[in-house]
């Protein structure tokens, strides 16, 4: 997901930890100043940070097409969508900051590679059809994970997710709208739409993370209600929802093994290539270097603005005091 393979810390057996778990089991929300196990705090910082970084880095593949959108309207819509992603990152950063980490620390950990962002944003967006496929598939996969997270145990995280979910559905629908236009367009446009689906299908399935059997961190996080569903549950749900949408477009999901399974009431489908997933996480995806370089450049180039505005604010404050 936007937070993949988040390493979960273990809890302890103190009386406080037991009482804390009882609060979570009773459906209570944990708030910033409440007692919480160090592991809960640490895992949440990692997860919310990774989630925020994904929103921020996720602007890059789409920003790639703003200047080349086919119409002024498409351009305005894409701009609004990319601006939303910045907003989502900011909601999540400010949520993470309530746990006792600063914004600059989080940013630095992204920039020097100590913290990750979702594997999906290390894939390139080669054609305009990718803007459709990203909205439809990537935001669609994100929604699968984010809707249940509105009920997560940490109050500021849950509240950020409520805001994000309200906006996310616009993202998915604008993507599907692009896909509909292209799938019903000229043969060349339909081919572009199919090509985008071919390239982004498996990377989208990877967003949910490896199979639960191999996901060692799930159990504690689920107990703490900072992870609400297993990776496999969400992936299944995503496939079941998306396949009929592809059929409606007249496009073919690039999986020859894909087949409806009456018994389980869902599709059987092929696993993505997990070796590729781990390579991308390690930094060897097609765009890892480019994405991190872009974020580092933005941070470095913006330094004079951050410093200048702070200096200006301080100068004004001193003048104001002097005038009083």
């Amino acid at each position: 997901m936007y937070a993949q393979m988040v390493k979960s810390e273990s809890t302890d057996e103190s009386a406080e930890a037991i009482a804390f778990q009882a609060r979570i089991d009773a459906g209570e929300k944990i708030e910033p100043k409440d007692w919480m196990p160090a592991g809960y705090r640490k895992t949440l910082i990692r997860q919310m940070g990774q989630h925020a970084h994904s929103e921020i880095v996720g602007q890059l593949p789409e920003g790639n097409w703003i200047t080349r959108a086919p119409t002024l309207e498409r351009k305005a819509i894409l701009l609004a969508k990319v601006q939303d992603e910045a907003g989502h990152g900011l909601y999540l950063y400010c949520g993470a900051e309530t746990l006792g980490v600063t914004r600059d620390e989080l940013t630095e950990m992204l920039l020097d590679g100590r913290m990750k962002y979702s594997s999906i944003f290390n894939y390139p967006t080669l054609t305009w059809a990718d803007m459709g496929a990203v909205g439809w598939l990537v935001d669609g996969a994100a929604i699968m994970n984010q809707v249940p997270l509105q009920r997560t145990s940490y109050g500021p995280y849950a509240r950020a997710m409520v805001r994000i979910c309200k906006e996310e559905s616009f993202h998915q629908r604008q993507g599907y709208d692009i896909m509909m236009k292209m799938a019903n367009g000229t043969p060349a446009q339909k081919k572009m739409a199919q090509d985008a689906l071919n390239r982004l299908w498996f990377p989208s399935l990877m967003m949910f993370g490896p199979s639960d059997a191999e996901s060692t961190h799930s159990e504690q996080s689920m107990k703490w209600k900072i992870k609400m569903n297993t990776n496999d549950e969400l992936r299944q749900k995503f496939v079941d929802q998306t396949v009929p949408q592809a059929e409606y477009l007249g496009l073919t999901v690039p999986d020859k093994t894909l087949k409806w399974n009456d018994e389980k009431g869902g599709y059987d489908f092929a696993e993505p290539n997990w070796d590729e997933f781990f390579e991308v996480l390690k930094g060897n995806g097609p765009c890892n270097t480019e994405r991190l370089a872009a974020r580092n450049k933005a941070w470095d180039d913006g330094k004079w603005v951050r410093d200048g505005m702070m200096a200006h604010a301080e100068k004004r404050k001193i003048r104001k005091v002097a005038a009083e």
Partner: protein
Amino acid sequence: MSSPNSAYPETPATQTKAKRQEWPLWEVFIRGQHGMSHRHVGSLHAPDEEMAIKNARDVYTRRNEGVSIWVVEARHIAASSPSEKGPLYEPSESKVYRHPTFFDIPDEVGAM
């Protein structure tokens, strides 16, 4: 910087001297269109109050969520502590007579 009764836990940056000057944190309150009071929506960083309002407009009102913005620097907020929960709120639990439903009024009396 942060006092023991601030809204958030201490951060390493507030405990030790911050490595770099980070823009201060502002809490944002928005009043919607329908006569409700300002409501806390989140926080953001900005160098001063003017930029905080401008940023709040971009971050928190992209879809007509509000017609008025308040910002206040987070360090100026004093917060009650979770450990005071008992002394602060328990007394009201035993005062059920503060609720109108405590009193049985006969139906014949009409709406009250």
